């Protein structure tokens, strides 16, 4: 199972790579989102005001799905110093709403092998980088569904 690294409490003690990745003390990590009760727009992360309809205090907190579909991608061969290449940068539409950007793993970095529209899942793993104080982080990736 690809989520092994984050299960059995292994995500405990790790810091979230972004604020919208939540690591509950008793449960699996998830992507936090918000849905507008006025216009149904779905956002990644917490919000107080809806940027679709402008409604204030109408946003409810939701867990976003770990299932989704690859919308588009790019294969990145040149990045900043210290960033390992190549990697696949992907935009994924989640089931039930919300669009997320991240790395697509478990595929060859070859445009012929990556199909836009293919089903993917969001998986959670320890990030291969530490901060200046030595703290470790939990990140998410996209992986094609078997």
């Amino acid at each position, binding site marked *: 199972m690809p989520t092994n690294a984050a299960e059995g409490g292994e995500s405990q003690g790790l*810091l979230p*790579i*972004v604020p919208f990745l939540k690591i509950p003390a008793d449960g699996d990590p998830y992507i936090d989102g918000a849905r507008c009760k006025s216009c149904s*727009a779905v*956002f*990644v992360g917490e919000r107080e005001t809806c*940027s*679709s*309809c402008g409604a204030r205090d109408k946003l409810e907190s939701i867990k976003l799905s770990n299932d989704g579909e690859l*919308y*588009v*991608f*790019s*294969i*990145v*061969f*040149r*990045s*900043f110093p210290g*960033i*390992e*290449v190549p*990697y696949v*940068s*992907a*935009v994924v*539409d989640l089931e039930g*709403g919300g*669009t*997320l*950007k*991240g*790395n697509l793993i478990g595929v060859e970095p070859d*445009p012929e092998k990556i199909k*836009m*529209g293919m089903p993917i899942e969001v998986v959670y793993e320890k*990030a*291969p*980088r*530490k*901060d200046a104080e030595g703290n470790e*982080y939990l*990140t*998410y990736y996209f992986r094609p569904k078997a």
Partner: protein
Amino acid sequence: MSDVYVIGIDMIKFGRFPEISVPKLGATAAHMALDDAGLTINDMQALYSGNLGQAAAMVGQRILGEIGQTGIPVVNCANACATGATAFREGWMSIKAGIYDTVLCVGTEQMGRGLLGGGGGGKKGIPTEGLLGSGTMPAVFAEAGMEHQRKYGTTFEQFAKVSVKNHHHSTMNPKAMYQIETPLETVVGSEMIAYPNTKLMCSVNVDGAAAAVICSEEKARQLGKMDRAVKVRASVLTSDPYQERNLQMPDVNTCTQRAAKAAYEMAGCGPEDIDLVELHDCFATAEILHYGNLGLGKAEDAGRMIDEGETALGGRVPVNVSGGLLSKGHPLGATGIANIYEVCTHLRGEADKRQVEGARIGLTHVIGLGSACAIHILEKTD
């Protein structure tokens, strides 16, 4: 409200000038535009200055420090890659409003080399680049291009042909950074930066400056400048409205479509009346998107349009005959005014080897990611 006319406009040759200060670059272009208009800084009632890299450093006032501190009002603009066009539009609005009748607009930029965008991490945490996808500009515009491929089947070679075309155009533009033919095999064979954008499908980071003197119709007639004046028939600025994906994936399409619609309405013309276009080819993928966005053809026909040379010099609607950002270069704050310079040069019949014959109406387009879209429609004066 008075019509607004460009009576003086010019740009410096784009290149790398690390030894020249930003205000000095802007001052050089300002002097060139003033000379083109046959006026001096003492005739200018306000300065609208566009610069991104030193947005907090009063570039406009420092330009006046180089060319004449006349005490006129200065507005410093920053709007990503739409910065120069935004400064021009601020000047246009001031004349439309009847506040001034003659103003100077300058766009200036000094660029480093290398990738723009990305990074992440901030003060705390770890960098997200390469873990949560890529925020680099080549990748962001690669993804925008892949959306076009997903919808319309546009191919890597079709994207690459944009670069072949624009590099060919720049061989006829002495003010472009490069004047080098780059055949298709060279473009597709150059280093892959972010598929499908190779290095030669990325715009060139250069230093540059461009400037325009604009005035009311009454002033242009009073000064006897109507023979080379260019009429601003439309000036439009938009931001991107809410879209399902645009907080994660910048949308350069909707703001362009909306700006184009508003600009055609303001100008009282349609895309079929446009004789040449300078559009925001920050990456080869981007140019393809904007054929449909600007109504130059149907979105699904964009690949065919580049295949059949419809947007090359001599084609149905020539696009980026200056060489575009891909080969002329892209000094962010200067680009918006440099595009207007290119179109004015054709409308004045002064574009030499790359002249679009009989050009009467031209359109300029820039996108600042985040997003801002500015469109101007310009017309030759009889």
